[in-house]
C-alpha cells in the first residue's frame, strides 16, 4: 500500500475548515491536518513534512501572505505546493500570494470538486 500523502489546511473559520477537510476526504490517499492560523500552521509544519498546504489569506495572528512567505523561505518546505483561498474581489492579495510562491488559488464560496481537482493536479494524482 502506498504511503499516505499529508495535507495541511490552514483556516480560522471552523465552517470553512470543515468544508475543505470534507472535500479533501474524497482523496483516499490524503491525510489532513488542520491549523487555526499561520502560527498554528508553522508549529504543525515544524513537526512533520506535508505534501500540500491549503491556506486562507485573512486570518488572525499570522495571515496567509506572511505564512506563504515564511514557508517559501524555509528549506524544508520550499517545494511544497500551496493553494490559497481568497475572495474574488481580493485580487491584490491573490497576486501577492502567487508572487510570494503560492502555486494556485481557489475563490470563495468554494466548490468541493474544484478543491479536489486543484489538489490532485498539484500532487499529480490520477
Amino acid at each position: 500500500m502506498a504511503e499516505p500523502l499529508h495535507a495541511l489546511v490552514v483556516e480560522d473559520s471552523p465552517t470553512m475548515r470543515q468544508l475543505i477537510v470534507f472535500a479533501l476526504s474524497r482523496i483516499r490517499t490524503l491525510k489532513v491536518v488542520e491549523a487555526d492560523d499561520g502560527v498554528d500552521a508553522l508549529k504543525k509544519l515544524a513537526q512533520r513534512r506535508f505534501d500540500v498546504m491549503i491556506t486562507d489569506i485573512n486570518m488572525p495572528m499570522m495571515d496567509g501572505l506572511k505564512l506563504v512567505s515564511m514557508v517559501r523561505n524555509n528549506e524544508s518546505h520550499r517545494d511544497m505546493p500551496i493553494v490559497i483561498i481568497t475572495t474574488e474581489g481580493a485580487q491584490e492579495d491573490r497576486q501577492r500570494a502567487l508572487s510570494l510562491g503560492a502555486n494556485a488559488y481557489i475563490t470563495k464560496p468554494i466548490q468541493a470538486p474544484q478543491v479536489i481537482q486543484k489538489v490532485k493536479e498539484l500532487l499529480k494524482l490520477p
Partner: protein
Amino acid sequence: MRTSKHTPVKPDASTPPSPVDVEAEVDALRRRVAALENELRGRSDGDADSLVEARCADIEADHHNLAQLYVATHQIHAAVGFREVVQVVTEIVLNLVGAARFQLFLYDERRDSLCAIAGEGADVAAVPPVPLGQGVVGAAAGRRERYVRTAPPGDGAGGGPEGGPLVVVPLATVEDLVGAVVIDALLPHKPSLMAIDDELFDLLSAHGAAALAGALLREQAPPEVRRLDIDVARALLS
C-alpha cells in the same frame, strides 16, 4: 436482407450468381457490418462516457451540497456562546451562500424593531433599526416569510440598497421571531442564488434562530440558573 450499396446484387432469375460474385458480396457485407459495428460502438461508448461523466458531476455536486448542509448544521449545533453562534451564522452567509454584503438583525421586542448586530460589507453600527412590518425587511420578518427580490433582466443578482435587499430570511422559532438575515449583494462571481442556498436559508431560519435565541437567553441568565437541574428535567418529562 438488405443489399450493400457498394456491390449491388442484381437479381436475375435466369442466371444464378457465380460463387465469386457471392463471395465478393459476402465480403462487402462483412466489411459494411464491421464498419457499422465500429460506428455504433464508437457512438455508444461516447454516449455512455458522457452519461457517466454527467452522472459523476451530479453526484459530486450533490455530495458538495450535502457536505455544506452537514457542516452548517454541525457548526450551528456545536456553538454554545452567543458570539460563537453569531460567528457561525455570519460564516454560513459569507462563505457558503457567498454573500458580499449582508446584515444579521436581532428582533428587539421592547422596541418592536429589528436591530443589526453583525454583517459584512457595511458598517453595522450605521444600519438604522427596522420597525417590524415596515419596508421590505420589516414586512418579511413580520410575516415570517422569506423574501427574494426578482432582479430585472440584465440586472444580475447584485441587488443592493438601490434595488432593495436581495434576500430577507426571517429567523424564527416555533413561537417567536428572533431576527433576520438580510442579503444585499452576492459575491461578483456568484451570478445568482442556487437551490442549495434555499436549503441553507431553511437551516438558518429554524436552526440558526433557535441557536441564537438559546445562546442569548443562556448568557442573559444568572450563572446559578445555567446549571442543569435534574429535578426540572424530570418535572418537564413527567
